[in-house]
């Protein structure tokens, strides 16, 4: 594929990944007070695992190479973008609050809260939105390059 269209595809995969992260963050924020889940226990915050899109030699070489021992990478196509490969659940236990009247309270009267910090989720949300916009800008740059190429030889 033409590298300009390929870079638009790559940036689009970045937008998809960032939007997925944003939906997980929104879910974490929505469950900031969820002390009971179908599986038992409080809600645990979720994070997306993103990785460079697999399926080419270059991806594996890129992750194993450093600037000193492999200055030139040979063979294989350029990167094919990014993909969400999984969701991980943060196992860190949340804070405990003393609420003996709560039906979920343990013998000592404590209720385990979700391990979601709305402040750090908001920071992550801002980061994801910023990276989304950065990918949009990269697409716009590729678009202006393509239209500059179309303009070669145009009669002024």
């Amino acid at each position, binding site marked *: 594929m033409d590298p300009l269209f390929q870079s638009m595809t790559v940036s689009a995969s970045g937008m998809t990944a960032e939007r997925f992260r944003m939906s997980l963050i929104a879910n974490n924020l929505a469950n900031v007070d969820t002390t009971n889940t179908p599986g038992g226990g409080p809600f645990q915050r979720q994070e997306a695992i993103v990785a460079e899109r697999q399926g080419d030699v270059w991806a594996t070489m890129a992750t194993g190479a450093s600037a000193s021992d492999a200055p*030139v990478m040979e063979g294989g196509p350029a*990167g094919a973008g990014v993909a969400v490969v999984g969701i991980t659940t943060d196992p860190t236990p949340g804070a405990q609050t003393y609420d003996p009247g709560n039906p979920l309270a343990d013998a000592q009267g404590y209720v385990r809260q979700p391990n979601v910090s709305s402040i750090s989720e908001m920071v992550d949300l801002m980061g994801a939105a910023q990276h989304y916009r950065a990918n949009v800008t*990269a697409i716009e740059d590729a678009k202006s390059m393509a239209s500059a190429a179309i303009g070669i030889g145009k009669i002024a």
Partner: protein
Amino acid sequence: MVDVAMMIPGLTEVARALSLHAFRQQVLANDLANAHSTGFVASDVDMTSFADTLDQTLPLRPSGTQAALIPTTPPSDSEDQLIVTAPVLAGAEGTGVDPDATMAEIASNALAYQAIATAAGGEITLAKTGLMG
């Protein structure tokens, strides 16, 4: 059959320069898309070996002596061999990619591409004027 590209000296090299910049755009876009990928190492295209070619190609003059200065072989057989790791584009806090530095490179690469395309367009317009009066 007359090769149209041969009528304008340097046009083949301009096309190669455009192709290389388009390829670099793809590599940089991949860096940006993988800003959150764990263990990802930022890459870039080595443009230094191509810079000499560009210096001689950009001030295009339709004369035989100038055209002779332009090397006829590309710096590398394959574009993929030009990919290098880019510690400059790596993030400061242990992440693989610095999005701001990568964005700056993407913008300047797009600008260089448009500049080359504009220069090529000017050369073609000149050649048209020469042909049609």
